[in-house]
């Protein structure tokens, strides 16, 4: 076997141009697929990480208060909840406290419906890093009635920094309320997701919602990394359950809920309860549809891999049929000298395997180079695609197992493509091979 492998390896160098073209075709296909895999690998982490900064947390706790049929979304006892979080044994980078409402912004007869998040504008440094202002400045955010809108919303309202806007919304008790904001800044549009949120001071949003100072609706817990979201959430849930009343954590069910978070809400609405309860959820549960996008990207990569390689494999199969004919006398000689049929087959399969592995490794190396090059480009935090970027740069993550899986798939497909000509070479009668005139 070592001898046939050795000859197979050297055979690749006999027709350098042909081997280079075949290997190059494999390398190109693998490079494309690896780039898609690498992009998909980082996509989920980047979007979730960026969202976690916009939403100010990896794990969230929201409070609910129920009295009869009436349910309010509020956390009143921050001291007790903060203490419970500290005692749960996780290591948060920092905690954020937010309230939020959905209302209609009005300016000179123009209206638009949007969500307004009440945040501690003065202290949420991470939000300031992620939300790059196109107009205005964060200094204006010191105004208690400051509002920061995304570029698109500001454009549709035809509003400028310093303008005053009306807002119509409902308090937590369901009463209609009206307020007035002053536009402190306009942020760059952060893609389709970024348009959803406008930011205002927590104190004023609480006032509009009918909440007292010091109260809020959601606590965000920012951790060291996205990876620790689920284990920390599990730990936190166990810890909180010991000291406060918690809703059961939701899982995706058959009720039509699209995300685990929706499932959690549906399940909780069914329950019959009174008093104060807390619900715990993670960024992954909120953004579980991201996983579907990643799965779609991976499926697309898989389809490209198969289609591209079916085309390449047809070329390889035809080339090896020609190779068999070119080397027919050589095959006859080897058979005459005592090489078994299996040896001839092995020689062709080894040659194909070396070609596939060489091409695939070159393809992955090329993809890594391209990834390295692309990740050097700074698109800036104000890029429309900032949610899929990491600190303004494209980032890629190629799981080693995925890379090895791609090499294995290519090797297998190449072996399948060459199996037929290899079999034909092995079946050749030595006398027929020896007397064939090329």
């Amino acid at each position: 076997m070592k001898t046939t492998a050795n000859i197979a390896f050297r055979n690749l160098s006999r027709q350098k141009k042909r081997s280079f073209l075949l290997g190059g075709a494999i390398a190109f296909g693998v490079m494309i697929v690896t780039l898609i895999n690498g992009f998909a690998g980082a996509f989920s982490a980047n979007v979730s990480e960026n969202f976690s900064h916009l939403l100010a947390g990896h794990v969230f706790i929201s409070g609910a208060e129920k009295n009869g049929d009436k349910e309010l979304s509020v956390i009143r006892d921050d001291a007790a909840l903060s203490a419970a979080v500290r005692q749960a044994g996780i290591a948060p980078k920092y905690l954020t406290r937010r309230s939020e409402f959905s209302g209609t912004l009005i300016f000179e007869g123009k209206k638009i419906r949007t969500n307004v998040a009440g945040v501690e504008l003065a202290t949420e440094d991470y939000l300031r890093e992620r939300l790059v202002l196109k107009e205005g400045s964060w200094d204006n955010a010191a105004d208690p009635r400051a509002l920061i809108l995304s570029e698109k919303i500001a454009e549709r309202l035809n509003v400028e920094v310093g303008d005053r806007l009306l807002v119509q919304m409902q308090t937590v008790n369901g009463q209609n309320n009206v307020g007035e904001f002053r536009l402190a800044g306009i942020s760059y549009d952060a893609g389709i997701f970024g348009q959803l949120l406008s930011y205002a001071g927590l104190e004023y949003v609480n006032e509009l919602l009918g909440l007292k100072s010091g109260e809020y609706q959601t606590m965000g817990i920012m951790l060291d990394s996205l990876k620790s979201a689920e284990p920390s959430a599990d730990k936190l849930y166990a810890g909180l359950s010991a000291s406060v009343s918690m809703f059961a954590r939701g899982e995706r069910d058959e009720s039509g809920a699209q995300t685990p978070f929706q499932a959690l809400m549906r399940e909780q609405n069914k329950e019959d309860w009174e008093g104060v309860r807390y619900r715990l959820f993670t960024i992954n549960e909120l953004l579980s549809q991201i996983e579907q996008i990643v799965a779609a990207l991976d499926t697309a990569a898989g389809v490209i891999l198969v289609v591209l390689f079916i085309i390449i494999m047809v070329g390889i199969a035809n080339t090896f049929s020609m190779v068999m004919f070119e080397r027919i006398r050589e095959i006859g000689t080897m058979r005459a000298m005592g090489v078994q049929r299996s040896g001839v087959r092995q020689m062709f399969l080894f040659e194909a395997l070396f070609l596939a592995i060489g091409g695939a490794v070159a393809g992955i190396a090329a993809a890594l180079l391209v990834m390295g090059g692309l990740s050097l480009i700074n698109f800036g935090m104000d890029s429309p695609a900032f949610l899929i970027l990491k600190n303004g740069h494209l980032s890629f993550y190629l799981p080693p197992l995925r890379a090895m899986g791609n090499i294995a798939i290519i090797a297998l497909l190449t072996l399948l493509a060459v199996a037929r000509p290899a079999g034909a070479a092995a079946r050749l009668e030595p006398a027929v091979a020896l007397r064939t005139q090329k």
Partner: protein
Amino acid sequence: MGIVELTDVKKTYLLGKVEVPAVKGVTFCIEKGDFISIAGPSGSGKTTILNMVGLVDQPSDGEVYIDGKPTSKLKDAELTRLRHETLGFIFQSFNLIPVLNVWENIEFPLLLGRTRVSKAEKDEWIDHLIEEVGLADWRKHKPNELSGGQRQRVAIARALATRPQIVLADEPTANLDSATGEQIIELMKRINRELQTTFIFSTHDAKIVDIADHIIRLKDGLITENLRRGENAEGSCSPAQGAAKPALATEA
């Protein structure tokens, strides 16, 4: 019994729907150590007989015995093993493996099959063969860097690598100039004497025919002459299967 025996061997090829008889029934016996020439014009069946003796082709009828063993019932793997252990081949076009150098081409048959020899013993034997064929300075050269005569020398050394009992040479001098051809013939004759290896040639070359101690002449797939001469004139093959009589029988 000889080292090679053919009894009423026939070979018919199918060309499309037409059956073309290449060998029409030949019987002969070859003794160990013979330097035998199978001579005849093109299309007389020389190469076909050589292929059947070399077990790379099967007779349509009759039996080929190698060292007393019938071969018609052997499976492909067994035939391959027998070829490797018993036979060496020299081809008209040399048929060296182009990606291997001189040393590796000669080594190649030793890496096949089940018998394993120590590396030192193998290397010493290959070096000896290279010295024997006069290519000591060319051992690292690839076939395309050698002349025709040198290539045929490599082919001879390769054919002898497994110490076969029989070497089959299909027109070994046909692609060489006459001077080189003579050197090759002399080399093979010397090896025949020294190692008692049986050499079987198919040839047009009168020089080979002249020095052969056993000549089988063919015409249209039949033996026209089966002649022993010199020291081997008597032979030990059974008359029923051996030299002169069957030749007459096939002529009849």
